[in-house]
Protein backbone atom coordinates (compact mmCIF):
# COMPACT_ATOMS: atom_id res chain seq x y z
CA UNK A 1 0.00 0.00 0.00
CA UNK A 2 2.79 2.41 0.95
CA UNK A 3 4.53 1.69 -2.34
CA UNK A 4 1.39 2.74 -4.17
CA UNK A 5 1.17 5.97 -2.22
CA UNK A 6 4.82 6.78 -2.95
CA UNK A 7 4.25 6.07 -6.59
CA UNK A 8 1.26 8.39 -6.66
CA UNK A 9 3.19 11.08 -4.87
CA UNK A 10 6.23 10.92 -7.16
CA UNK A 11 4.13 10.77 -10.30
CA UNK A 12 2.07 13.68 -9.09
CA UNK A 13 5.09 15.86 -8.49
CA UNK A 14 6.62 14.95 -11.83
CA UNK A 15 3.51 15.71 -13.83
CA UNK A 16 2.66 18.78 -11.83
CA UNK A 17 6.15 20.17 -12.49
CA UNK A 18 5.86 19.45 -16.19
CA UNK A 19 2.44 20.97 -16.59
CA UNK A 20 3.02 23.89 -14.29
CA UNK A 21 6.01 24.99 -16.34
CA UNK A 22 3.70 25.90 -19.18
CA UNK A 23 2.99 29.59 -19.13
CA UNK A 24 -0.59 30.53 -18.58
CA UNK A 25 -1.49 33.89 -19.87
CA UNK A 26 -5.18 34.09 -19.38
CA UNK A 27 -5.54 34.36 -15.62
CA UNK A 28 -5.03 37.29 -13.29
CA UNK A 29 -1.88 38.06 -11.30
CA UNK A 30 -3.06 36.54 -7.98
CA UNK A 31 -3.99 33.35 -9.68
CA UNK A 32 -0.62 33.27 -11.42
CA UNK A 33 1.12 33.71 -8.06
CA UNK A 34 -0.92 30.86 -6.68
CA UNK A 35 0.24 28.69 -9.54
CA UNK A 36 3.88 29.58 -8.89
CA UNK A 37 3.55 28.80 -5.20
CA UNK A 38 1.77 25.54 -5.88
CA UNK A 39 4.52 24.66 -8.32
CA UNK A 40 7.04 25.28 -5.54
CA UNK A 41 5.06 22.97 -3.27
CA UNK A 42 3.93 25.84 -1.01
CA UNK A 43 0.32 24.79 -0.89
CA UNK A 44 -0.76 26.86 2.11
CA UNK A 45 0.63 30.02 0.54
CA UNK A 46 -0.91 29.06 -2.79
CA UNK A 47 -4.29 28.77 -1.12
CA UNK A 48 -3.88 32.19 0.47
CA UNK A 49 -3.07 33.68 -2.94
CA UNK A 50 -6.07 32.08 -4.55
CA UNK A 51 -8.28 33.56 -1.83
CA UNK A 52 -6.71 36.93 -2.61
CA UNK A 53 -7.49 36.31 -6.25
CA UNK A 54 -11.14 35.71 -5.41
CA UNK A 55 -11.26 38.79 -3.20
CA UNK A 56 -9.75 40.89 -5.97
CA UNK A 57 -12.13 40.21 -8.78
CA UNK A 58 -10.47 37.18 -10.40
CA UNK A 59 -13.33 34.93 -9.30
CA UNK A 60 -15.15 35.47 -12.59
CA UNK A 61 -12.51 33.36 -14.29
CA UNK A 62 -13.43 29.66 -14.09
CA UNK A 63 -9.72 28.85 -14.18
CA UNK A 64 -9.23 30.60 -10.83
CA UNK A 65 -11.82 28.30 -9.25
CA UNK A 66 -10.23 25.35 -10.96
CA UNK A 67 -6.79 26.29 -9.56
CA UNK A 68 -8.39 26.63 -6.12
CA UNK A 69 -9.88 23.15 -6.48
CA UNK A 70 -6.53 21.75 -7.55
CA UNK A 71 -4.66 23.35 -4.63
CA UNK A 72 -7.26 22.14 -2.12
CA UNK A 73 -7.17 18.67 -3.61
CA UNK A 74 -3.36 18.68 -3.29
CA UNK A 75 -3.61 19.72 0.35
CA UNK A 76 -6.21 17.03 0.93
CA UNK A 77 -3.81 14.43 -0.43
CA UNK A 78 -0.45 15.65 0.73
CA UNK A 79 -1.27 17.31 4.03
CA UNK A 80 -4.31 15.42 5.23
CA UNK A 81 -3.41 12.00 3.90
CA UNK A 82 -6.81 11.74 2.21
CA UNK A 83 -8.71 11.78 5.46
CA UNK A 84 -12.29 10.62 4.81
CA UNK A 85 -13.81 13.51 6.77
CA UNK A 86 -11.69 16.14 5.04
CA UNK A 87 -13.26 19.54 4.64
CA UNK A 88 -10.54 20.35 2.08
CA UNK A 89 -11.88 17.72 -0.26
CA UNK A 90 -15.41 19.03 0.15
CA UNK A 91 -14.17 22.57 -0.60
CA UNK A 92 -12.20 21.29 -3.61
CA UNK A 93 -15.36 19.73 -5.01
CA UNK A 94 -17.34 22.92 -4.36
CA UNK A 95 -14.64 24.94 -6.14
CA UNK A 96 -14.72 22.55 -9.07
CA UNK A 97 -18.47 22.96 -9.41
CA UNK A 98 -18.08 26.74 -9.05
CA UNK A 99 -15.65 26.59 -11.97
CA UNK A 100 -18.29 24.69 -13.96
CA UNK A 101 -20.88 27.34 -13.16
CA UNK A 102 -18.60 30.08 -14.46
CA UNK A 103 -17.69 28.18 -17.60
CA UNK A 104 -20.91 27.83 -19.61
CA UNK A 105 -19.02 26.93 -22.77
CA UNK A 106 -17.12 24.16 -21.04
CA UNK A 107 -13.69 25.42 -22.04
CA UNK A 108 -12.14 23.73 -19.01
CA UNK A 109 -14.13 20.52 -19.16
CA UNK A 110 -11.14 18.49 -20.30
CA UNK A 111 -9.03 19.80 -17.44
CA UNK A 112 -11.70 19.44 -14.80
CA UNK A 113 -12.70 15.90 -15.73
CA UNK A 114 -9.59 14.17 -14.31
CA UNK A 115 -9.77 16.26 -11.16
CA UNK A 116 -13.44 15.44 -10.70
CA UNK A 117 -12.77 11.78 -11.41
CA UNK A 118 -9.97 11.65 -8.90
CA UNK A 119 -12.10 13.26 -6.20
CA UNK A 120 -14.99 10.93 -7.02
CA UNK A 121 -12.69 7.93 -6.79
CA UNK A 122 -11.45 8.95 -3.36
CA UNK A 123 -15.06 9.05 -2.19
CA UNK A 124 -15.60 5.62 -3.71
CA UNK A 125 -12.67 4.29 -1.72
CA UNK A 126 -14.15 5.86 1.37
CA UNK A 127 -17.47 4.16 0.59
CA UNK A 128 -15.68 0.82 0.69
CA UNK A 129 -13.90 1.62 3.96
CA UNK A 130 -17.03 3.07 5.54
CA UNK A 131 -18.98 -0.11 4.76
CA UNK A 132 -16.57 -1.86 7.12
CA UNK A 133 -17.52 0.61 9.84
CA UNK A 134 -21.27 0.44 9.24
CA UNK A 135 -23.56 -0.71 12.02
CA UNK A 136 -27.05 -2.21 12.02
CA UNK A 137 -29.48 0.51 10.92
CA UNK A 138 -26.65 2.98 10.39
CA UNK A 139 -25.03 3.29 6.98
CA UNK A 140 -24.97 7.08 6.97
CA UNK A 141 -21.21 7.38 6.38
CA UNK A 142 -20.96 5.17 3.28
CA UNK A 143 -24.17 6.68 1.92
CA UNK A 144 -22.83 10.21 2.30
CA UNK A 145 -19.62 9.33 0.43
CA UNK A 146 -21.69 7.61 -2.21
CA UNK A 147 -23.91 10.66 -2.69
CA UNK A 148 -20.88 12.84 -3.43
CA UNK A 149 -19.48 10.21 -5.77
CA UNK A 150 -22.84 10.00 -7.55
CA UNK A 151 -23.13 13.79 -7.83
CA UNK A 152 -19.76 13.96 -9.60
CA UNK A 153 -20.53 10.98 -11.84
CA UNK A 154 -23.77 12.62 -12.95
CA UNK A 155 -21.89 15.76 -13.82
CA UNK A 156 -19.20 13.90 -15.77
CA UNK A 157 -21.72 11.80 -17.64
CA UNK A 158 -25.30 13.08 -17.82
CA UNK A 159 -26.42 9.62 -18.95
CA UNK A 160 -24.87 7.96 -15.92
CA UNK A 161 -27.43 5.93 -14.00
CA UNK A 162 -27.27 5.91 -10.24
CA UNK A 163 -29.35 2.81 -9.62
CA UNK A 164 -26.74 0.14 -10.48
CA UNK A 165 -24.17 1.60 -8.14
CA UNK A 166 -26.73 2.37 -5.44
CA UNK A 167 -27.84 -1.26 -5.62
CA UNK A 168 -24.24 -2.40 -5.34
CA UNK A 169 -23.83 -0.27 -2.25
CA UNK A 170 -26.90 -1.83 -0.64
CA UNK A 171 -25.68 -5.28 -1.62
CA UNK A 172 -22.24 -4.63 -0.15
CA UNK A 173 -23.74 -3.29 3.06
CA UNK A 174 -25.84 -6.45 3.21
CA UNK A 175 -22.83 -8.70 2.60
CA UNK A 176 -20.90 -6.99 5.38
CA UNK A 177 -23.86 -7.36 7.73
CA UNK A 178 -24.17 -11.06 6.95
CA UNK A 179 -20.43 -11.53 7.51
CA UNK A 180 -20.91 -10.06 10.96
CA UNK A 181 -24.00 -12.20 11.52
CA UNK A 182 -21.98 -15.31 10.66
CA UNK A 183 -19.40 -14.35 13.28
CA UNK A 184 -21.67 -13.08 16.03
CA UNK A 185 -25.09 -14.64 15.61
CA UNK A 186 -24.58 -18.40 15.57
CA UNK A 187 -27.27 -19.09 18.18
CA UNK A 188 -30.03 -16.99 16.66
CA UNK A 189 -30.55 -14.29 14.06
CA UNK A 190 -29.93 -10.87 15.60
CA UNK A 191 -29.48 -7.23 14.57
CA UNK A 192 -26.81 -7.95 11.94
CA UNK A 193 -28.96 -10.54 10.20
CA UNK A 194 -31.96 -8.22 10.26
CA UNK A 195 -29.86 -5.35 8.93
CA UNK A 196 -28.43 -7.49 6.13
CA UNK A 197 -31.96 -8.48 5.18
CA UNK A 198 -33.06 -4.84 5.19
CA UNK A 199 -30.15 -3.84 2.94
CA UNK A 200 -31.02 -6.51 0.37
CA UNK A 201 -34.68 -5.49 0.56
CA UNK A 202 -33.61 -1.90 -0.10
CA UNK A 203 -31.59 -3.10 -3.10
CA UNK A 204 -34.64 -4.98 -4.40
CA UNK A 205 -36.76 -1.82 -4.25
CA UNK A 206 -34.42 -0.17 -6.76
CA UNK A 207 -35.46 -2.64 -9.46
CA UNK A 208 -31.95 -3.45 -10.61
CA UNK A 209 -29.93 -6.70 -10.38
CA UNK A 210 -32.86 -8.21 -8.51
CA UNK A 211 -31.91 -11.83 -9.09
CA UNK A 212 -28.64 -11.36 -7.22
CA UNK A 213 -30.34 -9.60 -4.31
CA UNK A 214 -33.05 -12.25 -4.00
CA UNK A 215 -30.59 -15.11 -4.44
CA UNK A 216 -27.99 -13.80 -2.02
CA UNK A 217 -30.57 -12.95 0.61
CA UNK A 218 -32.06 -16.44 0.32
CA UNK A 219 -28.65 -18.10 0.60
CA UNK A 220 -27.75 -16.07 3.68
CA UNK A 221 -31.14 -16.84 5.21
CA UNK A 222 -30.64 -20.55 4.64
CA UNK A 223 -27.07 -20.44 5.96
CA UNK A 224 -28.22 -18.63 9.10
CA UNK A 225 -30.63 -21.49 9.75
CA UNK A 226 -27.86 -24.05 9.30
CA UNK A 227 -25.59 -22.17 11.71
CA UNK A 228 -28.33 -21.98 14.30
CA UNK A 229 -29.08 -25.66 14.00
CA UNK A 230 -25.40 -26.59 14.30
CA UNK A 231 -25.11 -24.56 17.49
CA UNK A 232 -27.80 -26.59 19.31
CA UNK A 233 -26.93 -29.92 20.81
CA UNK A 234 -27.68 -29.87 24.54
CA UNK A 235 -30.72 -32.12 24.51
CA UNK A 236 -33.52 -33.31 22.26
CA UNK A 237 -35.75 -30.33 23.07
CA UNK A 238 -32.95 -27.94 22.09
CA UNK A 239 -32.31 -29.88 18.90
CA UNK A 240 -36.00 -29.96 17.94
CA UNK A 241 -36.37 -26.27 18.79
CA UNK A 242 -33.33 -25.36 16.70
CA UNK A 243 -34.59 -27.46 13.81
CA UNK A 244 -37.96 -25.75 13.97
CA UNK A 245 -36.40 -22.27 14.08
CA UNK A 246 -34.05 -23.20 11.25
CA UNK A 247 -36.94 -24.57 9.18
CA UNK A 248 -38.68 -21.19 9.40
CA UNK A 249 -35.57 -19.56 7.92
CA UNK A 250 -35.22 -22.31 5.33
CA UNK A 251 -38.81 -21.83 4.22
CA UNK A 252 -38.15 -18.09 3.85
CA UNK A 253 -35.04 -18.98 1.83
CA UNK A 254 -37.08 -21.32 -0.39
CA UNK A 255 -39.64 -18.56 -1.01
CA UNK A 256 -36.83 -16.14 -1.89
CA UNK A 257 -35.25 -18.61 -4.30
CA UNK A 258 -38.62 -19.16 -5.98
CA UNK A 259 -38.84 -15.41 -6.49
CA UNK A 260 -35.26 -15.32 -7.81
CA UNK A 261 -36.08 -18.08 -10.30
CA UNK A 262 -39.18 -16.10 -11.27
CA UNK A 263 -36.91 -13.16 -12.08
CA UNK A 264 -34.46 -15.22 -14.12
CA UNK A 265 -35.39 -18.78 -14.94
CA UNK A 266 -32.15 -19.40 -16.81
CA UNK A 267 -29.80 -19.13 -13.86
CA UNK A 268 -28.76 -22.64 -12.75
CA UNK A 269 -27.61 -21.34 -9.37
CA UNK A 270 -31.24 -20.64 -8.40
CA UNK A 271 -32.30 -24.25 -8.98
CA UNK A 272 -29.14 -25.65 -7.39
CA UNK A 273 -29.70 -23.68 -4.22
CA UNK A 274 -33.42 -24.45 -4.15
CA UNK A 275 -32.61 -28.17 -4.40
CA UNK A 276 -30.34 -27.90 -1.35
CA UNK A 277 -32.98 -26.00 0.62
CA UNK A 278 -35.75 -28.38 -0.47
CA UNK A 279 -33.70 -31.31 0.78
CA UNK A 280 -33.57 -29.72 4.22
CA UNK A 281 -37.31 -29.06 4.07
CA UNK A 282 -38.05 -32.63 2.92
CA UNK A 283 -39.71 -31.37 -0.26
CA UNK A 284 -38.96 -34.24 -2.57
CA UNK A 285 -41.20 -32.98 -5.39
CA UNK A 286 -39.37 -29.66 -5.46
CA UNK A 287 -36.00 -31.41 -5.55
CA UNK A 288 -37.11 -33.34 -8.62
CA UNK A 289 -38.46 -30.14 -10.18
CA UNK A 290 -35.09 -28.43 -9.67
CA UNK A 291 -33.21 -31.39 -11.10
CA UNK A 292 -35.42 -31.42 -14.17
CA UNK A 293 -34.77 -27.72 -14.78
CA UNK A 294 -31.04 -28.20 -14.31
CA UNK A 295 -31.11 -30.95 -16.92
CA UNK A 296 -32.98 -28.60 -19.26
CA UNK A 297 -30.30 -25.99 -18.70
CA UNK A 298 -27.63 -28.56 -19.45
CA UNK A 299 -26.21 -28.51 -15.94
CA UNK A 300 -26.54 -32.16 -14.94
Amino acid at each position, binding site marked *: *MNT*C*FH*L*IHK*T*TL*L*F*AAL*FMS*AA*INAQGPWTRQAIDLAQAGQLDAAEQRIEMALDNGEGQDPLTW*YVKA*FVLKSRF*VEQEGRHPNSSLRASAIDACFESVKRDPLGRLD*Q*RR*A*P*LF*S*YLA*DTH*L*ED*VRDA*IQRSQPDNAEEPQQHFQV*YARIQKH*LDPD*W*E*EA*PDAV*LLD*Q*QLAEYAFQKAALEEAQSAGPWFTWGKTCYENALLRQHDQF*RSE*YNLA*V*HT*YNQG*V*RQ*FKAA*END*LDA*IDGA*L*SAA*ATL*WQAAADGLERAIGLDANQPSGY*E*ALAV*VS*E*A*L*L*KQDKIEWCKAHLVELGQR
Partner: protein
Amino acid sequence: MLRPFCVLFLLLSVAHTASPFGAVPEWKIRGGSEEMQSTVQNDPEIDRSPIWAMVFGRYLYHLGREMFWPELDERARFQIGVVRWSALAEDLASQLEGRAIAGLPVEITPLTAAELRDHRGDFTMLFLGDTNAKSGKEEIEESLKRWNKKQDKKALIITDGAQLPACDLVFQRRGEGQDIGLCLIQQLENLENKGMVLPAPFLQRLCP
Protein backbone atom coordinates in the same frame (compact mmCIF):
# COMPACT_ATOMS: atom_id res chain seq x y z
CA MET B 1 -5.68 -8.40 -1.45
CA LEU B 2 -2.85 -5.95 -2.00
CA ARG B 3 -2.84 -6.29 -5.75
CA PRO B 4 -6.38 -5.05 -6.50
CA PHE B 5 -5.78 -2.13 -4.17
CA CYS B 6 -2.59 -1.25 -6.04
CA VAL B 7 -4.41 -1.43 -9.36
CA LEU B 8 -7.05 0.92 -8.02
CA PHE B 9 -4.42 3.28 -6.72
CA LEU B 10 -2.54 3.24 -9.98
CA LEU B 11 -5.73 4.17 -11.77
CA LEU B 12 -6.29 6.92 -9.28
CA SER B 13 -2.74 8.16 -9.68
CA VAL B 14 -3.42 9.03 -13.30
CA ALA B 15 -6.21 11.30 -12.20
CA HIS B 16 -4.13 12.77 -9.42
CA THR B 17 -1.48 13.82 -11.89
CA ALA B 18 -3.91 16.09 -13.66
CA SER B 19 -2.58 19.60 -13.62
CA PRO B 20 -4.59 22.77 -13.98
CA PHE B 21 -1.99 24.32 -16.17
CA GLY B 22 -0.98 22.15 -19.02
CA ALA B 23 -2.26 19.73 -21.57
CA VAL B 24 -4.48 17.18 -19.95
CA PRO B 25 -3.61 13.60 -20.77
CA GLU B 26 -6.15 11.64 -22.79
CA TRP B 27 -8.68 10.55 -20.22
CA LYS B 28 -11.43 8.12 -20.56
CA ILE B 29 -14.06 8.54 -17.94
CA ARG B 30 -14.73 5.15 -16.43
CA GLY B 31 -18.22 3.91 -15.92
CA GLY B 32 -19.46 4.16 -12.38
CA SER B 33 -20.50 0.54 -12.14
CA GLU B 34 -17.08 -0.66 -13.21
CA GLU B 35 -15.55 1.35 -10.42
CA MET B 36 -18.06 0.15 -7.86
CA GLN B 37 -17.52 -3.40 -9.05
CA SER B 38 -13.89 -3.16 -7.95
CA THR B 39 -15.08 -3.08 -4.35
CA VAL B 40 -17.53 -5.96 -4.61
CA GLN B 41 -17.24 -9.09 -2.54
CA ASN B 42 -18.06 -12.47 -3.97
CA ASP B 43 -21.59 -13.78 -3.79
CA PRO B 44 -22.22 -16.15 -0.89
CA GLU B 45 -21.97 -19.92 -1.21
CA ILE B 46 -24.87 -21.97 0.04
CA ASP B 47 -23.98 -24.15 3.03
CA ARG B 48 -24.10 -27.71 1.76
CA SER B 49 -23.84 -29.35 5.18
CA PRO B 50 -25.87 -32.57 5.23
CA ILE B 51 -28.72 -31.32 7.40
CA TRP B 52 -30.47 -34.62 7.97
CA ALA B 53 -27.26 -36.47 8.69
CA MET B 54 -26.67 -33.87 11.39
CA VAL B 55 -30.21 -34.30 12.77
CA PHE B 56 -29.86 -38.08 12.87
CA GLY B 57 -26.36 -37.76 14.31
CA ARG B 58 -27.53 -35.64 17.21
CA TYR B 59 -30.40 -38.02 17.97
CA LEU B 60 -28.02 -40.98 17.89
CA TYR B 61 -25.55 -39.26 20.19
CA HIS B 62 -28.24 -38.46 22.74
CA LEU B 63 -29.69 -41.94 22.49
CA GLY B 64 -26.22 -43.33 23.13
CA ARG B 65 -25.81 -41.12 26.17
CA GLU B 66 -29.23 -41.65 27.73
CA MET B 67 -30.02 -45.28 26.96
CA PHE B 68 -29.35 -48.03 29.48
CA TRP B 69 -26.98 -50.43 27.75
CA PRO B 70 -27.03 -53.96 29.16
CA GLU B 71 -23.67 -55.65 29.44
CA LEU B 72 -21.85 -52.46 28.51
CA ASP B 73 -19.11 -53.28 31.01
CA GLU B 74 -18.13 -56.15 28.75
CA ARG B 75 -17.17 -53.73 26.02
CA ALA B 76 -13.96 -51.77 25.58
CA ARG B 77 -15.41 -49.24 23.16
CA PHE B 78 -18.77 -47.79 22.25
CA GLN B 79 -19.00 -48.99 18.67
CA ILE B 80 -21.35 -47.39 16.18
CA GLY B 81 -21.68 -48.97 12.75
CA VAL B 82 -23.17 -46.77 10.05
CA VAL B 83 -24.28 -48.54 6.90
CA ARG B 84 -24.82 -46.70 3.61
CA TRP B 85 -24.70 -43.16 4.93
CA SER B 86 -21.17 -41.82 4.83
CA ALA B 87 -22.28 -38.25 5.65
CA LEU B 88 -23.79 -39.50 8.90
CA ALA B 89 -20.64 -41.46 9.77
CA GLU B 90 -18.54 -38.36 9.09
CA ASP B 91 -20.84 -36.11 11.12
CA LEU B 92 -20.80 -38.52 14.06
CA ALA B 93 -17.04 -38.84 13.87
CA SER B 94 -16.56 -35.07 13.96
CA GLN B 95 -19.24 -34.57 16.61
CA LEU B 96 -17.90 -37.28 18.91
CA GLU B 97 -14.21 -36.66 18.44
CA GLY B 98 -12.63 -36.73 21.87
CA ARG B 99 -15.92 -37.52 23.58
CA ALA B 100 -17.02 -40.65 25.38
CA ILE B 101 -20.41 -42.33 25.59
CA ALA B 102 -21.22 -44.14 28.83
CA GLY B 103 -17.59 -43.70 29.78
CA LEU B 104 -16.31 -45.55 26.74
CA PRO B 105 -14.31 -44.15 23.84
CA VAL B 106 -16.41 -44.04 20.70
CA GLU B 107 -15.55 -45.85 17.51
CA ILE B 108 -17.44 -45.07 14.31
CA THR B 109 -17.35 -47.61 11.47
CA PRO B 110 -18.76 -46.63 8.08
CA LEU B 111 -19.89 -49.64 6.08
CA THR B 112 -21.44 -50.59 2.78
CA ALA B 113 -24.15 -53.25 2.72
CA ALA B 114 -21.61 -55.76 1.43
CA GLU B 115 -19.16 -54.88 4.18
CA LEU B 116 -21.88 -55.39 6.79
CA ARG B 117 -22.62 -58.84 5.39
CA ASP B 118 -18.99 -59.86 5.84
CA HIS B 119 -18.48 -58.12 9.15
CA ARG B 120 -17.86 -60.56 11.99
CA GLY B 121 -17.91 -58.32 15.04
CA ASP B 122 -20.80 -56.79 16.96
CA PHE B 123 -21.61 -53.09 17.49
CA THR B 124 -23.21 -51.20 20.34
CA MET B 125 -25.42 -49.42 17.82
CA LEU B 126 -25.89 -50.30 14.20
CA PHE B 127 -27.52 -47.69 11.99
CA LEU B 128 -28.83 -48.63 8.57
CA GLY B 129 -29.22 -45.78 6.10
CA ASP B 130 -31.05 -45.41 2.82
CA THR B 131 -33.54 -48.12 3.81
CA ASN B 132 -36.49 -46.43 2.13
CA ALA B 133 -34.88 -46.58 -1.28
CA LYS B 134 -36.48 -49.23 -3.48
CA SER B 135 -33.17 -50.09 -4.99
CA GLY B 136 -30.94 -51.92 -2.57
CA LYS B 137 -33.52 -52.50 0.15
CA GLU B 138 -33.38 -56.23 -0.43
CA GLU B 139 -29.60 -56.10 -0.41
CA ILE B 140 -29.46 -54.45 2.99
CA GLU B 141 -32.04 -56.84 4.45
CA GLU B 142 -30.01 -59.75 3.18
CA SER B 143 -26.77 -58.27 4.53
CA LEU B 144 -28.38 -57.69 7.90
CA LYS B 145 -29.62 -61.28 8.05
CA ARG B 146 -26.20 -62.65 7.18
CA TRP B 147 -24.44 -60.42 9.70
CA ASN B 148 -26.96 -61.29 12.41
CA LYS B 149 -26.44 -65.01 11.97
CA LYS B 150 -22.82 -64.84 12.99
CA GLN B 151 -22.52 -65.08 16.76
CA ASP B 152 -25.01 -63.61 19.18
CA LYS B 153 -25.49 -59.97 18.14
CA LYS B 154 -26.59 -57.49 20.79
CA ALA B 155 -26.36 -54.23 18.87
CA LEU B 156 -29.29 -51.85 18.93
CA ILE B 157 -30.33 -51.83 15.28
CA ILE B 158 -31.82 -48.61 13.95
CA THR B 159 -32.99 -47.75 10.45
CA ASP B 160 -33.69 -44.41 8.80
CA GLY B 161 -37.25 -45.26 7.84
CA ALA B 162 -37.95 -48.88 6.92
CA GLN B 163 -39.36 -51.24 9.52
CA LEU B 164 -37.14 -54.22 8.81
CA PRO B 165 -37.97 -57.34 10.84
CA ALA B 166 -34.59 -57.44 12.56
CA CYS B 167 -34.47 -53.78 13.51
CA ASP B 168 -35.26 -52.44 16.98
CA LEU B 169 -35.94 -48.83 16.27
CA VAL B 170 -36.83 -46.60 13.33
CA PHE B 171 -35.89 -42.92 13.09
CA GLN B 172 -38.38 -41.46 10.67
CA ARG B 173 -38.27 -38.05 9.05
CA ARG B 174 -41.66 -36.41 9.39
CA GLY B 175 -43.41 -33.40 7.87
CA GLU B 176 -42.50 -31.02 5.11
CA GLY B 177 -41.66 -27.32 4.96
CA GLN B 178 -41.60 -25.51 8.27
CA ASP B 179 -43.05 -28.42 10.26
CA ILE B 180 -40.30 -31.01 10.08
CA GLY B 181 -38.63 -33.30 12.55
CA LEU B 182 -37.83 -36.85 13.54
CA CYS B 183 -40.18 -39.33 15.14
CA LEU B 184 -39.45 -42.83 16.38
CA ILE B 185 -41.03 -46.24 15.90
CA GLN B 186 -39.94 -48.84 18.38
CA GLN B 187 -40.22 -52.59 17.75
CA LEU B 188 -40.99 -53.44 21.33
CA GLU B 189 -40.51 -57.17 21.10
CA ASN B 190 -37.02 -56.83 19.66
CA LEU B 191 -36.06 -54.22 22.23
CA GLU B 192 -37.34 -56.37 25.09
CA ASN B 193 -35.40 -59.37 23.83
CA LYS B 194 -32.25 -57.25 24.11
CA GLY B 195 -33.25 -55.91 27.53
CA MET B 196 -33.50 -52.35 26.25
CA VAL B 197 -36.01 -49.59 27.00
CA LEU B 198 -36.08 -46.22 25.30
CA PRO B 199 -35.30 -43.24 27.55
CA ALA B 200 -38.23 -40.93 28.34
CA PRO B 201 -37.31 -38.07 25.96
CA PHE B 202 -37.34 -40.56 23.08
CA LEU B 203 -40.64 -42.12 24.18
CA GLN B 204 -42.14 -38.63 23.91
CA ARG B 205 -41.20 -38.61 20.25
CA LEU B 206 -42.92 -41.73 19.01
CA CYS B 207 -44.57 -41.46 15.60
CA PRO B 208 -48.34 -41.10 15.74
